[in-house]
């Protein structure tokens, strides 16, 4: 006869001890029964026990086996139970959000804004700063450079921590005399004229030394890379094409390998094509590279130690650390300085990881951007937290009921968190969509100046960040209502009505603090954006010193057939004349360095009348043709412009700008002074200053007047210049005519026309990028803050409806009540502003380096933002108060 001893509810509540005990009971019984049997058969009790145990087998082992199994089953069942609870919670969350669609929508959109913006910024930060470079084993790649420790030997804009270019002979010594590198390569950007069939095209190419492709572990798509044999000066010219060029210019011709091309009038054979998606290191992301040729074909002097122009990168041997390499190169640098004091004295060799060098200076501003977007996210969280708190209060009865029915506090907390995390993940999913759109928009803004911008994408890495962020956000604002629930659940909750008088003080305090926090955060973000926008506006409006409207420019690269100054001059003069004759052209001129192009050359000069052994300063110069100043609208302040007479048959002349004149002849007249390249006793001639022009922003839009000098183009051998043309009417007829003018003289010269305006715009893409992003975030933050603060204040006022009703019923004047509510709102706003002000003063200092013409405590910005947010605070109190006053007090009192 079997009786039921106990049921098995709450199996999952059993513990390991219970299981062990049960098993022990079961197994013990078995042995007891066997013992009894044996005793009945006549065995001695002690031998019966021994026999029973023997028959059973290894008792301990069996017991352990059963216990382990039981515990394992227990764990499985617990996990299943947990899973089903979570699924239940999620379903419940979805259902409850279905019931209040407006609430859910607002919450999801708010979170989408915050999380989406954060994802967007993170994807930029990830692509530019965090992700390893897109080369195999990229952490072994380094950049090697040289910099003079002595300030006087450095050029403008160079500081001691940079990696400057190397000279060819130095590079060869580095490569051949060091042991820490698996490979060391040098590269120089070079422009090649592709002529022959079709329109002549200027190719952006790199002249690279041997082992370039093998060092980067690049497998060519077709053919091969460049070999050591190709880099000998007598070898045949070979070229490797990029995928883009191969498709664009040669239609993806499968027989491209072995084809002969004419580049800058030399024959080259195509030996390879590089797969798509390869980004050459140490190049700007604004221009893609079309081709690679051996360094010895790049038409640069290979046998100089003094001229420094090669960018050098290397791969460290796998057993060498960066520190060891630095040590070795330091020693090598000292040896080279000793052996070649004139060129290398005072120059130090520096090595940095290629990853770090590529990111360059962008990590500071990107981190600031990340900080800004976090503020936006916090504001969004604050809004959602307050919404959740209000909702939790409305559900107090429901929660109390659950608690009374046996749900532990932990279970309730878990359910609330599931709700908040679910909605947060939904918001995050929508946010990923926003971020995706944002990345597409980035392509339109095209901040090519930011390194690796092409690698920015919303990919799996970024999406896992979004997921983690969503969960963290969900927990953050999900805790708010939980913190609100008092410990005297459920009795208290069941007792009071929906308004919950006892909780209102806590609730009010939470709303108050949220309003203050939101105001402060919004203040900081708006100040940051305001300063950056202010700075950018000034940048756009700044007087650059030259005209930007209605100017077309093109590069002109003459082929090797123009091998003398006479032939070059003849071409330039002829071309200028033809262009001037085009209808609609006002003037034309040439320069070796267009403003904002960074093509200035530095040279040491000596000044007549100054001590001969003084340290020679560097001054930048470029060569210009007569008519250039007129074309660019650069004013001649004193003296005269160059003319055709200023050629080698006459006295050498030079024009300087105001800054240079003021710097070297502060209290004298600069006109008529003489200077020469090199030392006093060098063979170059003394040049007389015949004119002074105004300063221009040469190196960058944000970099005002630096010293600069100009030489007459036609006095020198020069086969590459930029042509600038000022026109009057609409461009289309003029551009065709310009091209025609060039090709009438020489049909092999590529002509790519840009407007000066576009060049200026391109040079400020980086500040524009940050301004647009920060500005958008601030706008979103302001919207959220307005909505949030207004919502919270409305709620607050509604909570006090009863109190207001009583006061009015007792005779209080409307104006007093209005003032009472307004005073509260103003108080909170002021607290928030004060907190925001303090934080802003500190935070704005981080922006100091990036602001142009705006101080970090710009009063206009601060006052504007303060007034704006104060207005928001006041209006948020005023409007609900007015509305509350319109209601009949009796109605309010009765509605309880």
């Amino acid at each position: 006869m079997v009786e039921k001893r106990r049921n098995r509810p709450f199996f999952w509540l059993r513990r390991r001890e219970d299981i062990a005990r049960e098993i022990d009971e079961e197994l013990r019984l078995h042995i007891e029964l066997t013992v009894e049997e044996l005793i009945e058969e006549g065995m001695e009790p002690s031998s019966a026990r021994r026999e029973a145990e023997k028959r059973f087998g290894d008792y301990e082992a069996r017991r352990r086996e059963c216990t382990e199994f039981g515990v394992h089953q227990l764990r499985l069942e617990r996990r299943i139970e947990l899973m089903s609870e979570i699924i239940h919670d999620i379903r419940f969350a979805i259902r409850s959000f279905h019931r209040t669609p407006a609430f859910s929508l607002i919450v999801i959109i708010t979170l989408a804004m915050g999380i989406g913006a954060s994802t967007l910024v993170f994807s930029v930060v990830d692509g530019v700063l965090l992700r390893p470079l897109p080369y195999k084993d990229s952490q072994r790649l380094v950049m090697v450079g040289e910099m003079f420790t002595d300030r006087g030997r450095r050029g403008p804009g160079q500081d001691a921590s940079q990696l400057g270019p190397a000279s060819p002979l130095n590079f060869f010594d580095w490569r051949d005399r060091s042991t820490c590198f698996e490979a060391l390569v040098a590269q120089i950007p070079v422009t090649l004229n592709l002529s022959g069939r079709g329109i002549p095209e200027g190719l952006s190419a790199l002249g690279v030394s041997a082992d370039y492709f093998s060092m980067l572990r690049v497998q060519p798509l077709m053919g091969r890379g460049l070999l050591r044999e190709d880099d000998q000066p007598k070898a045949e010219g070979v070229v490797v094409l990029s995928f883009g060029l191969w498709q664009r210019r040669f239609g993806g011709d499968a027989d491209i390998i072995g084809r002969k091309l004419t580049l800058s009038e030399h024959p080259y054979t195509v030996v390879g094509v590089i797969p798509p998606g390869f980004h050459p290191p140490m190049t700007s992301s604004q221009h893609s590279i079309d081709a690679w040729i051996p360094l010895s074909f790049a038409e640069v002097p290979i046998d100089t130690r003094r001229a420094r122009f090669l960018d050098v990168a290397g791969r460290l041997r796998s057993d060498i650390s960066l520190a060891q390499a630095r040590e070795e190169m330091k020693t090598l640098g000292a040896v080279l300085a000793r052996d070649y004091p004139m060129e290398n004295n005072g120059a130090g060799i520096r090595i940095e990881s290629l990853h770090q060098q590529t990111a360059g200076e962008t990590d500071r501003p990107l981190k600031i951007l990340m900080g800004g977007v976090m503020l936006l996210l916090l504001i969004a969280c604050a809004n959602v937290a307050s919404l959740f708190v209000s909702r939790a209060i409305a559900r107090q009865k429901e929660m109390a009921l659950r608690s009374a029915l046996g749900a532990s506090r932990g279970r309730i907390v878990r359910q609330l968190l599931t709700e908040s995390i679910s909605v947060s993940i939904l918001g995050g999913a929508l946010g990923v969509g926003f971020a995706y759109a944002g990345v597409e928009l980035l392509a339109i803004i095209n901040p090519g100046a930011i390194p690796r911008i092409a690698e920015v994408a919303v990919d799996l890495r970024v999406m896992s960040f979004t997921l983690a962020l969503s969960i963290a956000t969900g927990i953050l604002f999900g805790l708010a209502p939980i913190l609100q629930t008092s410990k005297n659940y459920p009795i208290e909750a069941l007792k009071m009505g929906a308004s919950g008088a006892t909780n209102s003080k806590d609730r009010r305090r939470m709303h108050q603090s949220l309003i203050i926090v939101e105001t402060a955060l919004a203040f900081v973000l708006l100040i940051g954006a305001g300063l950056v926008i202010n700075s950018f506006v000034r940048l756009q409006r700044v007087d650059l010193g030259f005209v930007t409207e209605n100017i077309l420019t093109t590069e002109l690269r003459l082929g090797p057939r123009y091998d003398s100054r006479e032939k070059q001059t003849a071409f330039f003069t002829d071309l200028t004349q033809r262009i001037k004759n085009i209808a609609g052209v006002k003037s034309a001129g040439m320069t070796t360095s267009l403003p904002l192009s960074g093509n200035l050359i530095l040279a040491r000069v000596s000044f007549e009348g100054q001590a001969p052994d003084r340290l020679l300063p560097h001054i930048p110069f470029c060569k210009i043709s007569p008519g250039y100043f007129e074309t660019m609208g650069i004013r001649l302040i004193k003296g005269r412009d160059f003319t055709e007479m200023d050629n080698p048959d006459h006295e050498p002349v030079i024009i300087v700008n105001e800054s240079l004149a003021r710097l070297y002849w502060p209290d004298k007249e600069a006109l008529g002074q003489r200077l020469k390249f090199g030392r006093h006793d060098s063979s170059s001639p003394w040049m007389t200053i015949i004119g002074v022009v105004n300063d221009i922003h040469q190196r960058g839009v944000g970099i005002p007047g630096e010293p600069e000098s100009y030489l007459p183009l036609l006095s020198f051998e020069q086969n590459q210049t930029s042509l600038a043309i000022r026109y009057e009417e609409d461009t289309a007829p003029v551009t065709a005519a310009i091209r025609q003018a060039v090709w009438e003289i020489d049909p092999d010269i590529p002509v790519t026309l840009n407007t000066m305006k576009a060049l200026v715009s391109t040079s400020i893409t980086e500040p524009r990028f940050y301004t647009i992003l920060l500005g958008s975030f601030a706008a979103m933050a302001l919207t959220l803050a307005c909505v949030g603060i207004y919502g919270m204040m409305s709620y607050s006022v509604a909570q006090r409806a009863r109190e207001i009703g009583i006061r009015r019923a007792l005779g209080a004047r409307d104006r007093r009540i209005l003032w009472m509510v307004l005073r509260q709102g103003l108080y909170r706003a002021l607290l928030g502003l004060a907190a925001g002000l303090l934080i802003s003063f500190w935070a704005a200092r981080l922006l100091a380096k990036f602001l142009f013409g705006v101080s970090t405590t710009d009063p206009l910005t601060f006052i504007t933002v303060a007034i704006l947010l104060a207005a928001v605070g006041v209006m948020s109190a005023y409007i609900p108060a007015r509305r509350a006053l319109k209601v009949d007090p009796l109605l309010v009192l009765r509605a309880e």
Partner: protein
Amino acid sequence: MANENINLLKGTLGLLLLKSLSGGQRHGHDILKWIRRASDGKFHIEEGAIYPALHRLEAQGLIDAEWGVTENNRQAKYYRLTPKGRARLRSEVAQWEEYVAIFNSLLQAV
């Protein structure tokens, strides 16, 4: 082959336990007694081995367990077949018989 204890073939314990419960519910010791009786004492089973096997069958839902009281008023864990277990028993028996038939004909083939 007289009176030598034959070891159970690997993998057949489960089937045996299911079959032992086909007549009603039993506790572990009773199951062992049934096996001894039905095999005329010829099958040698290490007694303790049936318990892990029983718990496994229980986890698979083939048998149910319940604590009850024996005739001598002792607490014992009784096992019985579930419908799923009954079905499994049927199919396993059928498989076993087919296996034995094929193996037999192989053993008799030339």
